[in-house]
């Protein structure tokens, strides 16, 4: 695993920026891009750091683990060797890529790992189910929109030391180092038509949700009123919220696909708990924010 940008080069670019502000104003994007793409000091994670990342991501044998800036390949190799997953490493440095392949051979996992020489900002990563990274903040933040756009909802991202600026982690673990877990959220912002099938009839709600990363809020319009959605949560493609209607809490749980949400709604407690299925179809999409 590699840090791709050194602090010192970043600081230099910021100092220059301050000194000749006007001149550099136009040049900064080019300079920054050049700086950010330089593969600088390679700081390997210790084995216990690697273990903690894969543990936090709860890697399973059917996972495809991408390590962005894979260095000597230790995360990718561990994912295959210790967790039975498949792994892909993306690394700029050709020597480290060659070393990774050699180490994978030594550990007997060549059939389950691959290493690609390339830029993490350009590599195709769409089939990942887990992404790990140990990159400096500027690069992490440049990656954020790509990860959100290209990864499937439910994909777990684990960042070592440097997390995203805006996107809050779903979990944070501190074992020697800081590790942040992010679960790529489904897109749920917009209006949905909800139908709940009850034993005798069915009930209709118009659900409206606003979304910022995994944080969601909103409510349901019903004949004669508005019911705020309480304790609304989104983890990957799993959504839950509570509507209070007729002095009862209806606890909705569901799975989001591109155009529909399907799940179970429960109300009542203990032996009197009842449940039914619900389904929502998308009415309109609203832009995020």
């Amino acid at each position: 695993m590699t840090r791709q940008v050194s602090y010192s080069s970043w600081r230099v670019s910021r100092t220059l920026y301050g000194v000749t502000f006007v001149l550099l104003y136009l040049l900064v994007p080019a300079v920054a891009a050049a700086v950010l793409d330089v593969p600088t000091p390679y700081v390997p994670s210790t084995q216990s750091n690697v273990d903690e990342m894969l543990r936090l991501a709860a890697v399973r044998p059917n996972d495809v683990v991408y390590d962005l800036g894979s260095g000597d390949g230790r995360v990718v190799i561990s994912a295959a060797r210790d967790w039975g997953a498949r792994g892909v490493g993306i690394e700029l440095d050709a020597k480290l890529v060659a070393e990774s392949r050699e180490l994978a051979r030594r550990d007997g996992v060549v059939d389950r790992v691959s290493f690609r020489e390339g830029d993490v900002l350009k590599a195709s990563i769409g089939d990942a189910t887990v992404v790990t990274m140990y990159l400096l903040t500027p690069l992490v933040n440049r990656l954020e929109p790509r990860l959100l756009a290209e990864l499937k909802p439910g994909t777990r991202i684990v960042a070592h030391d440097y997390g995203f600026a805006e996107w809050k982690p779903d979990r944070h673990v501190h074992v020697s180092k800081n590790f942040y877990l992010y679960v790529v959220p489904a897109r749920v912002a917009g209006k949905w038509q909800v139908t709940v099938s009850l034993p005798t009839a069915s009930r209709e709600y118009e659900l409206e949700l606003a979304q910022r990363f995994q944080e969601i809020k909103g409510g349901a319009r019903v004949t004669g009123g508005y019911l705020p959605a309480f304790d609304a949560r989104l983890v990957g493609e799993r959504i839950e919220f509570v509507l209070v209607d007729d002095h009862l809490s209806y606890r909705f749980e569901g799975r989001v696909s591109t155009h529909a949400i399907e799940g179970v709604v429960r109300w009542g407690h203990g032996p009197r708990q009842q449940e039914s299925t619900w389904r929502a179809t998308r009415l309109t999409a609203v832009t995020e924010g």
Partner: protein
Amino acid sequence: MQREEHYPHAPAVSRRRFLGGAIAVGAATAVPLIAHSQFFDVPFVPTPQVVVDEMLRLAGVGPGDVVYDLGSGDGRIVITAARKFGARAAVGVELDDHLIYQSEESARQANLGERVKFVQQDFFKADFSQATVITLYLLPAVMRRLRERMLRLKPGTRLVAHDFDFEDWKPDRRTTIRKNVFLWIVPASVGGQWQVRAAVPGSEFAFGLELRQKYQELDGFARIEGQPGGLWEANIEGDRVRFVVVDSRDRDNEATLYFEGRVSGGAMEGEGTRGVGNQQVRFKWLATRVGDLPTKAGGRK
């Protein structure tokens, strides 16, 4: 359920105020304290039924539980706990005899028999040590006075409240269903010096552990062969303790040890894991308390 402002030495004059709605709650905070403190033992603000349900759901009340409601008002929490959630027993403690009478009448109508009981008593004097769940809707000053006593209850006792919390004792869980509802789990006391023996297959070893406790949050450090090492992700929920120790005796082969166990007085024991994935090894561990924390607070963190 009611919010209760409590004046044990006030004259035995009891008056009730029925306040409806959330706005009145704010007003009630100041009014009884300042203007009417000699007379208002009990501003009674009933909790909406959905919030009652949420409190008992969050506490996970079931057939094994004994629920105490401190300041039980018209008895709705006690009755809901027994009727909807099947609590083994539910007890309401309430000063106002009119409310006690009303509660008993409701319980009779619900046909709950011996499973519910209402006690006319000052809950500062009541014995609720048998409770597995305690529900509260009390003003901040009363919550503050009860906090120390709550912390001495049996570890694992669940406390649920709404609107008002225990200030720097952070809730273990929190939900918002119309109101903010808080759950605390009374933590066992684990602060001090411990000697831990970890029976890791092939490399059994012992180490010292220093735990500092603030409610359910723990921090401290481990001392392995004289070397201070980090203690991570340490916390306690009831009598269940969890912490992570990084064994870096072998610099090139650091091992992370995950400990989980139960505390009982001066002993802890449980199961741990070393390593991850298919490299994971399970082991038994036990610990004994060997002393208190050094009185000088100049330790490391």
